[in-house]
């Protein structure tokens, strides 16, 4: 019922967009083909093949890149215990996909394209048939890729790798417009010209139906039959591959199994003491969690990206800019430690460990996970600002981090944002609606408070620079760190008392939502 409602809402939101994109696409297809025919008829075949290949690959990879699948990859393995032939299931899934709104919206575009390609009215049905064959192959290929992803997702290590790569791919794609505007477009244009000139995309099966349509439009019957037959064979082959994949997934042959790379390793907690064990646990878990690992790499990539932007837009970073940047980086200690623990919080609080140790370990792991980003930022700072400022910048960042980590403990205890379990709605629960907005407002409040409390210590670290007496740093930097450390100790002691009082409530809240 909820799914049907979500579908209905999605469709209602989608329909106007689909309608306009369909009208616009139809116009562009007609005008584009007629324009190309008039300008250089030889260009039509490779250009259309290239576009069909691009659309086909994007369609196939859409679940990976955009997180949204353009056509459905039906989990037909659930139907395998019914007495039905495999190819019937594959065909049913394909027919089901033909009725998808996105596919239906593509039909006017294909009709308009076929009309533009047809030099005589009698050629139109054949051109349309060729175009539809291309669409059918696209759906069959998307079904194969969907089944492959389905099979891989049942193997945990591949799924982890996919999550990691997808986050990286998403980050790179979000950076793509900026890269294109700063010189990347020229390279892309050259690559397209090479592909079109050599008609290298003739090998792409996504294009074969459209090539048949082009030849049909020109009245070249033999070429039409050849390309259409090739496209039909490709569709049958894709359907056969789908059937084999379904059978293998059902038999568990694509399921997880096999020995992992960790197997055989005699792992011992190396770091000393309970805080060390807690810290090491957090680091090991984070390193093996693909989303956390990707975030870790992105924390290095983001400063490098800003370095790229800075070097192309301005000469460098002013001392005040570096000061602000160091404070902002330090203040990013907000970690929502207990909300992210999820159900593991019951284990954590089941151990007889003093609560201040738990808080310190959580803060330390937060710091360790941000260390690569901080280091990259320091390297970036040394390239953009006078290197003499770096000790003060690092101290400023550290002082702000200490205050931020200390205050974050209160937010984690009093307002944990519970992380959704894998496979569950990430936009529900504590991250959604007014609760999510409330938590964001609270986070902003803590952020401002952190900057205000940390300001005197950062000021102390920067005073020698303003007085132009660098030797004073020998005194001011340790003093600033000691002051921030004392504030941190007080904050942790207070938070530990709050945690002891509120531990069962925190557990109920997190376990109730995790």
């Amino acid at each position, binding site marked *: 019922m909820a799914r049907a409602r979500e579908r209905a809402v999605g469709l209602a939101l989608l329909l106007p967009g689909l309608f306009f994109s369909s009208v616009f696409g139809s116009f562009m297809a007609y005008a584009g083909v007629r324009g190309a025919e008039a300008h250089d008829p030889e260009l039509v075949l490779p250009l259309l093949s290239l576009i069909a290949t691009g659309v086909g690959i994007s369609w196939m990879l859409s679940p990976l890149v955009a997180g949204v699948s353009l056509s459905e990859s039906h989990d037909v393995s659930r139907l395998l215990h019914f007495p039905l032939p495999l190819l019937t299931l594959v065909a049913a899934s394909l027919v089901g996909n033909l009725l998808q709104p996105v596919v239906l919206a593509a039909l006017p575009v294909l009709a308009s394209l076929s009309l533009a390609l047809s030099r005589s009215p009698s050629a139109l049905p054949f051109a349309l048939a060729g175009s539809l064959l291309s669409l059918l192959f696209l759906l069959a290929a998307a079904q194969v890729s969907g089944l492959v992803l389905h099979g891989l997702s049942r193997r*945990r290590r591949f799924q982890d790798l996919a999550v990691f790569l997808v986050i990286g791919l998403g980050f790179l794609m979000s950076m793509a417009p900026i890269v294109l505007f700063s010189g990347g477009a020229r390279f892309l244009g050259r690559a397209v010209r090479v592909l079109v000139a050599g008609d290298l995309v003739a090998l792409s099966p996504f294009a074969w139906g459209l090539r048949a349509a082009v030849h049909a439009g020109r009245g070249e019957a033999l070429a039409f039959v050849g390309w259409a037959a090739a496209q039909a064979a490709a569709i049958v082959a894709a359907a056969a591959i789908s059937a084999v994949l379904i059978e293998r997934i059902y038999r568990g042959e694509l399921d997880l199994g096999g020995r992992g790379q*960790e197997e055989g390793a005699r792992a011992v907690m190396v770091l000393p003491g309970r805080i060390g064990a807690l810290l090491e*646990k957090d680091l090991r878990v984070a390193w093996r969690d693909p989303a956390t690992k990707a975030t870790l790499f992105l924390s290095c990539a983001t400063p490098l990206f800003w370095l790229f932007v800075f070097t192309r837009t301005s000469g460098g970073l002013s001392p005040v800019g570096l000061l602000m940047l160091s404070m902002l980086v330090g203040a990013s200690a907000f970690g929502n430690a207990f909300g992210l623990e999820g159900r593991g919080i019951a284990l954590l609080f*089941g151990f007889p460990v003093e609560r201040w140790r738990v808080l310190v370990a959580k803060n330390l792991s937060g710091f360790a996970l941000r260390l690569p980003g901080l280091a990259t930022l320091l390297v970036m700072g040394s390239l953009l600002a006078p290197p003499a400022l770096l000790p003060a910048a690092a101290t400023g960042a550290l002082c702000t981090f200490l205050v931020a980590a200390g205050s974050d403990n209160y937010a984690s205890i009093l307002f944990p944002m519970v992380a959704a379990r894998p496979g569950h709605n990430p936009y529900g629960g504590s991250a959604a609606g007014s609760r999510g907005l409330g938590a964001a407002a609270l986070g902003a409040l803590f952020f401002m408070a952190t900057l205000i409390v940390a300001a005197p210590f950062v000021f102390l670290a920067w005073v020698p620079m303003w007085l132009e007496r660098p030797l004073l740093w020998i005194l001011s930097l340790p003093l600033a760190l000691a002051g921030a450390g004392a504030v941190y100790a007080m904050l942790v002691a207070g938070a530990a008392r709050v945690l002891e009082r509120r531990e069962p409530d925190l557990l109920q809240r997190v376990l109730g939502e995790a």
Partner: protein
Amino acid sequence: MDHVSFRVARGRFFGFLGPNGAGKSTTIKMLTGLLRPTEGEAVIEGHPLEKELLAVKRVIGMLPEDLPLYERLTGEEYLHFAGRMYGLSREETRKRTDELLAFLSLEEERGKLIVDYSQGMRKKTALAAALIHSPRVLFLDEPLNGIDPISGRVVTDLLRRLAQKGVTMFFTSHVLDVAERLCDEVAIIDRGRLVAQGTLEQIRAQREVGQDATLEDVFLKLVAADVRREDLSWIG
């Protein structure tokens, strides 16, 4: 829970039984400090739970039903982590981990991430973690669910031996014949209220059921279960 009160003597194998939703897991969560009761108190091994929570956690071990484990640690790493959290030295933790893994037939899986474990392997890992610090009281919520018969026998034999050595067992199970075999004493709750407590003989006598009545017979009578006996109309 509604005014539940009971006492378990040291070294007893105590079965806490009841139908689904009766409050068994809730009681265990309250006794281990994971849930705060609205009123009342609990004392475990002489430590009042509310005031000396950490002292209680040092002497108890817990096997929860829903098995929240750190899935991105290997079984061996998790046991090392648990040992260190209970304050054991690195050497002692390593020694006990090796023994536990061998005892519970987890040696071959020691280097696998817990996320790749079967339900039974998870259960055994959680049980190993509950035992690593030599607890005085063990809270076991459905300990035999999902465990194969061989491991089940190994685990029940171990639990019996632990009880003989003075470890108190607080045990919940849906499998009543296992409870009947293992428990010295049982308490039966229904909809949050304690409806009977004592040895099986005492409960039989209190409730005036025959001496040959099994724990299951007594249980069904006490919780007034309506066991349907008619067949489905199309199966014949």
